[in-house]
């Protein structure tokens, strides 16, 4: 039986704010993503120039070589505003928590072959610092990027990277004998030749000035090769087949996170490239440059777990990366 509950019905004067209505039409109700995102950042009549960069306005599209007629052409396919974002991540952390409980509760970490455990510690733990670099880079774009449609998801990305650094830390504390494994991993990050290419890559990103180039270097190139390599290929396939399934459980957050986040990255690249031939050319130049550097930097990292196979598997991933970017409208 259908019960028709009644409330007093009043005809609204308008469906949404005018700046939203100008974009979506006056008779449409706006989504929370739209109201929380579109035109939220100030654009006109700034009062003062930054004392730290007087050549620019507070928010200034000319900080980037990428030109957009409308910076709200960027859309997050996940439609993340704060509420939607935290709800999505809360669900994932629940899964992560039960995975950690499962592995810890059954003492599965201790069932890992010693060699595999060492490989994981060597491979995974220095990546805490790479994730910290990701957090820095996301914060940079949030701070100095233009338009909430672009900057908002970059803060979420930045905080996700911090979360990932913390999940890696937990894996280290679970597998390692002591907290010293963290110090050791940091020593590797600072000194071991296998990590210097990656560390140099991350540090070079820290001094870039163009928010979109940082985006390419971090979200497109580095994430785009590191996550498929470390989490999808090495942990989920290679190590899992050697008895490392518990590790795959402990890093499920990263795998799921990347599968979700790359859709947003693809959408961003696609929108920027479709805007103009100049944007497309600029993106191709940047992506080629940072892809090659990322692939080279990751090679010795891949060798930690893959040995002689590293070369072939990394080339394969670069091929997949190129195909993915081609779909987003960038030919490499």
């Amino acid at each position: 039986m259908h019960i028709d509950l009644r409330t007093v019905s009043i005809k609204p004067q308008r469906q949404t704010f005018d700046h939203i209505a100008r974009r979506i039409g006056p008779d449409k109700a706006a989504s929370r993503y739209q109201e929380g995102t579109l035109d939220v950042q100030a654009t006109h009549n700034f009062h003062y120039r930054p004392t730290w960069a007087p050549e620019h306005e507070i928010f200034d599209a000319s900080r980037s070589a990428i030109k957009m007629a409308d910076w709200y052409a960027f859309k997050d396919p996940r439609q993340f505003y704060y509420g939607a974002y935290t709800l999505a991540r809360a669900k994932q952390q629940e899964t992560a928590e039960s995975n950690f409980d499962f592995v810890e509760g059954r003492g599965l970490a201790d069932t890992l072959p010693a060699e595999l455990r060492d490989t994981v510690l060597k491979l995974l733990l220095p990546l805490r610092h790479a994730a910290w670099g990701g957090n820095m880079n996301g914060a940079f774009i949030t701070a100095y990027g233009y338009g909430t449609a672009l900057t908002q998801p970059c803060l979420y990305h930045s905080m996700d990277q911090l979360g990932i650094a913390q999940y890696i830390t937990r894996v280290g504390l679970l597998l390692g004998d002591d907290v010293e494994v963290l110090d050791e991993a940091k020593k590797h990050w600072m000194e071991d030749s296998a990590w210097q290419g990656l560390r140099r890559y991350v540090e070079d990103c820290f001094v870039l000035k163009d928010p979109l180039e940082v985006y390419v270097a971090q979200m497109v190139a580095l994430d785009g090769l590191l996550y498929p390599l470390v989490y999808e290929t090495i942990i989920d396939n290679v190590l899992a087949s050697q008895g490392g399934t518990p590790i795959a459980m402990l890093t499920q957050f990263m795998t799921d996170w990347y599968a979700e986040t790359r859709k947003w990255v693809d959408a961003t690249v696609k929108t920027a490239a479709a805007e103009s031939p100049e944007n497309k050319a600029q993106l191709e130049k940047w992506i080629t440059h940072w892809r090659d550097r990322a692939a080279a930097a990751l090679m010795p990292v891949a060798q930690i777990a893959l040995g002689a196979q590293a070369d072939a598997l990394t080339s394969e991933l670069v091929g997949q990366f190129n195909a993915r970017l081609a779909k987003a409208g960038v030919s490499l």
Partner: protein
Amino acid sequence: MDMKVSKKKLGLKEKYQHMTRGLGWETTYQSMDDVFPFVKYEGIKIHDWEKWEDPFRLTMDAYWKYQAEKERKLYAIIDAYAQNNGHLSVTDARYINAVKLFLNGISPLEYMAHRGFAMTGRQFPGVGPRVACLMQSLDEIRHAQTQIHSISNYNKYYNGFHEYRHMLERVWYLSVPRSFFDDAVTAGPFEFMVAIGFSFEYVLTNLLFVPFVSGAAYNGDMGTMTFGFSAQSDEARHMTLGLEVIKFILEQDPDNLPIVQQWIDKWTWRGYRVLTLVGMMMDYMLPKRIMSWKEAWEVYFEENGGALFKDLARYGIRPPKWLDQIEQDKDHISHQAWATFYNYAAACNFHTWIPTDDELDWLSQKYPNSFDKYYRPRLEHWREEAKKGNRFYNKTLPMLCQTCQIPMIFTEPGDPTQICYREVDYKDNKYHFCSDGCKEIFEHEPEKYIQAWLPVHQIYQGNCFNEGVDPTAEGFDPLAAVLDYYHLNFGRDNLDFEGSEDQKNFDEWRGMATKNV
């Protein structure tokens, strides 16, 4: 199965330290000065970032979990409030103008705080402060969005909300809160933290949020009240961060003291000037009053703030400058501000009115030293004039203070019958100020404040007309042209509450909801 004895359990603090500390490193492929280019130019000296005591100790997974729980509850209430036409249960439709003031004047600041904390969250070399700043950046976008989302429902039914983003960058009074935040984010990272993290979030926040949120609660506005309460636990974290920042900077080097003291003086004054709007809201716009502005200042600043500055005395910090003037001003500023908005009601996106007799009596009682003597007769005079059909609308533009951008409405300390004027000659121009505080702030950084986008100057310079408008055309009406530029709907968004569309609609709708017509 053989179970290995579980490892030594780490304490919460220890565990958090491992989760976060040690993540950063001394860069070698790029110099630290290039990676963190803005930490030295303000003159603040930090010797050991590791001395930073993390105030939150919140890992991301815990953050997501707690915050998602809060969001779930908040949006359930926002939805229910909208579905039940909750706006019809507010005390009376005048109250909705306080919500307009909030969305137009305050919510955009939340967004600026989000971006500002992202800047400091990128620029500090220490891991602890970076994480704390970024978490606050994330909280601040939450506040901006939850406010937009809850107030969105008011916008569907009432005027004055619809162009808050456009008006923020144009309408005269909105340059007051906006320039305040523009000032903070254009400063260096340390000054931003003292300005917003300490002075605003710690010292003055109670004077902003308590009045609005309690005002909402007192006036039956469940929607606004709920986001306020939901934000409270975030605010508690932010206050802790603000205090930690000050102590950290002061403990690092004695040379930091005079710099920090100057910032505290400046930002307390800047913040206090912005709070004029809140004082006015408390004394005039809430049909059901919480307390007077004067009482709020006494409780939240004089008592609580007094204790704080006593605590900071051991670092050499003294209470902010110009408190003696503020002490005298508290009998006056809310009345002076309301009179101004009453005057300029034609150029404003919320309504004003003359308080009822009960309300005038309440003001007389709360302000025995000033209201009957200086302000009540004027309000009664305007009421008489309005009854005769001469509702007073001021059509000349006021002179603005170069620093706080409030019209020059404040009176001389010690003489409430004399407007306070100060001026400074700088590079062949004369600049005007409402007070010694604003004048001194200007003199400290004239190159910054001469850039101010002063709405009245901009109108006179012809910068506030839409493209294609010809001010030399016959019959040109400058006020109408400016209101077009503001996107202000004449007769709907502005003018007196009495006779407004909001008033009529509210009465009609409430009738529908409570009577069988």
